[in-house]
C-alpha cells in the first residue's frame, strides 16, 4: 500500500510529472500508484506471461521515467507518453529475441491452446480468458500491442496511432485481424464469445 499525501491525488498526471521534473518524490509515488499495475499487466501480457521479466520491465520504466522526466514536454497526455515508452521497450525485447518472445506453454493448435474437456468447462469464464490470453501470446508484437492498448488500456484508435506512431487505418486493420484471429482460436467458447 502506497501512502501519498491527499493533495497529490487531486493533481493531474501532467501536473505530477511537472513536479517530478523538480525532483518531488511524492509525485513519483502518486504516478506509481496510478500506473504500476496497469504497466505491469501490459508488460505481462506483452511478454507472454513472463512475470519476472514484466517486473524487471516495470523497474526499468520507473527508472526511465525518473531519468528522462525532463524529456516530457507536457504537450501530450502523460499516459500516452508512458505507454509509448512501454511499447518501445517491448518492441526492443522482441527484436532482441528474434520475431517472437518465447512461449513455453502455448501450442499454436487451437485445441492445445484451449484444452476443453467438458461443456461446463467450456463455458467457464476463467478458462475462456485463459484461452484468449494464450491465443494472444501467439500473435506478433504489433498486433498484440494494438490489441492490448485498445482492450486493456481502453485507448481510442486515434490515441493508439499516436502511441505506436502509425496510421489509424493500420491500427484498425490490425485490430480487426486480431479479433478475427482470437474468435477463430477460441471458437469453443461460442456461448461466451459470440462469433
Amino acid at each position: 500500500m502506497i501512502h501519498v499525501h491527499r493533495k497529490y491525488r487531486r493533481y493531474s498526471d501532467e501536473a505530477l510529472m511537472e513536479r517530478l521534473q523538480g525532483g518531488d518524490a511524492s509525485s513519483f509515488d502518486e504516478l506509481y500508484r496510478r500506473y504500476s499495475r496497469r504497466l505491469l499487466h501490459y508488460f505481462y501480457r506483452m511478454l507472454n506471461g513472463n512475470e519476472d521479466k514484466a517486473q524487471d520491465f516495470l523497474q526499468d520504466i520507473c527508472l526511465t521515467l525518473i531519468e528522462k522526466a525532463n524529456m516530457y514536454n507536457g504537450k501530450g497526455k502523460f499516459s500516452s507518453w508512458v505507454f509509448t515508452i512501454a511499447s518501445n521497450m517491448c518492441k526492443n525485447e522482441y527484436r532482441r529475441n528474434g520475431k517472437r518472445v518465447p512461449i513455453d506453454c502455448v501450442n499454436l493448435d487451437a485445441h492445445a491452446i484451449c484444452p476443453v474437456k467438458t461443456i461446463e468447462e467450456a463455458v467457464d469464464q476463467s478458462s475462456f480468458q485463459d484461452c484468449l490470453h494464450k491465443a494472444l501470446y501467439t500473435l506478433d508484437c504489433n498486433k498484440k500491442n494494438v490489441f492490448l492498448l485498445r482492450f486493456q488500456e481502453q485507448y481510442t484508435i486515434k490515441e493508439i496511432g499516436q502511441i505506436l506512431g502509425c496510421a489509424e487505418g493500420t491500427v484498425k486493420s490490425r485490430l480487426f485481424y486480431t479479433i478475427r484471429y482470437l474468435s477463430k482460436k477460441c471458437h469453443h467458447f461460442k456461448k461466451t464469445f459470440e462469433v
Partner: protein
Amino acid sequence: MAQRSSTICSRMRNLILEKSPKAFTEDEKKRLPKHLKKCESCRALQEEVTGLDQAFSIPADSPLKPRPDIRKNSHAYLKSLRRSSRATVNKRFQDFLRIKVPAYQAAFGLIMLAITFTVIHGRRTSDAPPSMNRKASYWISRSAPLPDHRLVILDSVQTFKIGRNMLEDSALFGIVFPSVTENDMDSSTMDTVRTDSL
C-alpha cells in the same frame, strides 16, 4: 437501400472498434442500440468487443502485483540523481571560482587601493588641525573661505561632547580656534557649543 444500410453498418463497426462504450458521445449512445436491434452482424461484433473488454480489463483482485522493491529502488535512484545534480552544481561553482577568482581578487584589490588612497589623501589635504576629531574636522573643512581670525570659546563643561583631543587642548584656557565661526556650526550642535567672538 442496401448500399445505405451497408454504409451505416461500416460506420457502426468503426464506432464499435474505435473506442470503448465509456468513451461514446451522447449521440453515439443513442444511435448504436437502435442500429444493433436491426443488424445482426453488428450485434455479433458488439458482443465480441464487449467480451474482449471484460476479458482484458485488469481485475481489482489480480494476483499480479508490482514487487515492493521496485518503488524503493526508484526512490533510491531519484535521490542519487538529485545528489549528483547538486554535486554537478557545486563542481561548476568550484570551477568558476578556480578560474575567475584571481582576476576578481586583483580587480577588487585595485579598487580598494584606489579608495584607500583617495580617503587618506583627502584627509591630509583638509585644513583641519591635527588634533581634531572627525566631526570637528568636518565642520572646519566646510568653512572655506575662512574668515579672519576669530576665537571660539567652548564651554569647558560641554567640551567633552565634541571630542577628547579638543578637551585636552582647551581644558585650562577655554578653547581658541582661529578658524571656526558661529556660521560654520550646525544648528543641531549649538546647544553643545557656545561661540563667542573676541
